[in-house]
């Protein structure tokens, strides 16, 4: 592999979001994927990033009690009666 075109792991970790967001050019994407295919460390790092995103997503289930839901439903009833 040409030393000049070879991506470093340090570059890889900074490009990972652009890769996941589909924001890399075709050339950059190919370089990124070549590196990923050859580098066990960066493959592990990619797993970190995917796990981080997945686990962060779990925070959406945190229960928040809805205060004044009845009040809001009353507002809706009033709105409905006014609108019709």
């Amino acid at each position, binding site marked *: 592999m040409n030393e000049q075109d070879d991506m470093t792991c340090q570059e890889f970790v900074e490009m990972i979001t652009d890769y996941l967001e589909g924001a890399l050019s075709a050339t950059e994407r190919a370089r990124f994927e070549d590196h990923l295919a050859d580098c066990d460390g960066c493959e592990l790092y990619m797993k970190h990033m995917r796990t981080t995103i997945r686990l962060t997503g779990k925070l*959406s289930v945190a229960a928040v009690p809805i205060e004044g839901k009845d009040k809001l439903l009353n507002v809706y009833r009033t709105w409905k009666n006014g609108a019709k």
Partner: protein
Amino acid sequence: MGDAMPYPNDATLIDALRGGDEDAFSTLISTYHAPLVRTAALYVNSPTVAEEVVQDTWIAVLKGLERFEGRSLLKTWLFSIAINRAKTTAQREGRYDVLAEPEDTDEIPAVASDRFRPTGQVLQGHWVSQPQDWDAIPEERLLSLEIHAVIHETIERLPFHQRAVILLRDIEGISAEEVRDLLDVTDGNQRVLLHRARARVRQALETYFEEAH
């Protein structure tokens, strides 16, 4: 979250809401109240105020329902109303971090530079030692309350714009384009902020797993 709604699409739900279907409104509140409170809480100084902002948001939603033309997703429309109201409150509260330009000037790398071989060495810029294999961590551990808390606390400590982007993208599941518009940042900014925020959360998890060994 919003994907569990019993209405196949926005148009069906909006028709039901306009028609006075109380179940539809109840579903809407149950689905979006918590996400909207979390979002409003980014901008204002207390959970109580965030709750008030969202109560006002629902009233504004009802007032605007007849005029809603479906040019954006209903979900995005709800978030934009809540964010606008929260921003107005933030202005009153003097929250300068919220009102400032995105904080994209910090050049903290995603991974500490000492994890890579220094310049001049063979394999410069490559890992000194490989990252941990997170596949070896049991799923129940990954889903534990402790991990949940590590992520939550890390996000709470992020600068405002990073916190806002990771919340809207990775927790509330809003698309990149919609987050760009909701937060009034560029595509590039949105990605940089997301990159920094995710890197900080990954780092916190790595530190936690190392220390817990």
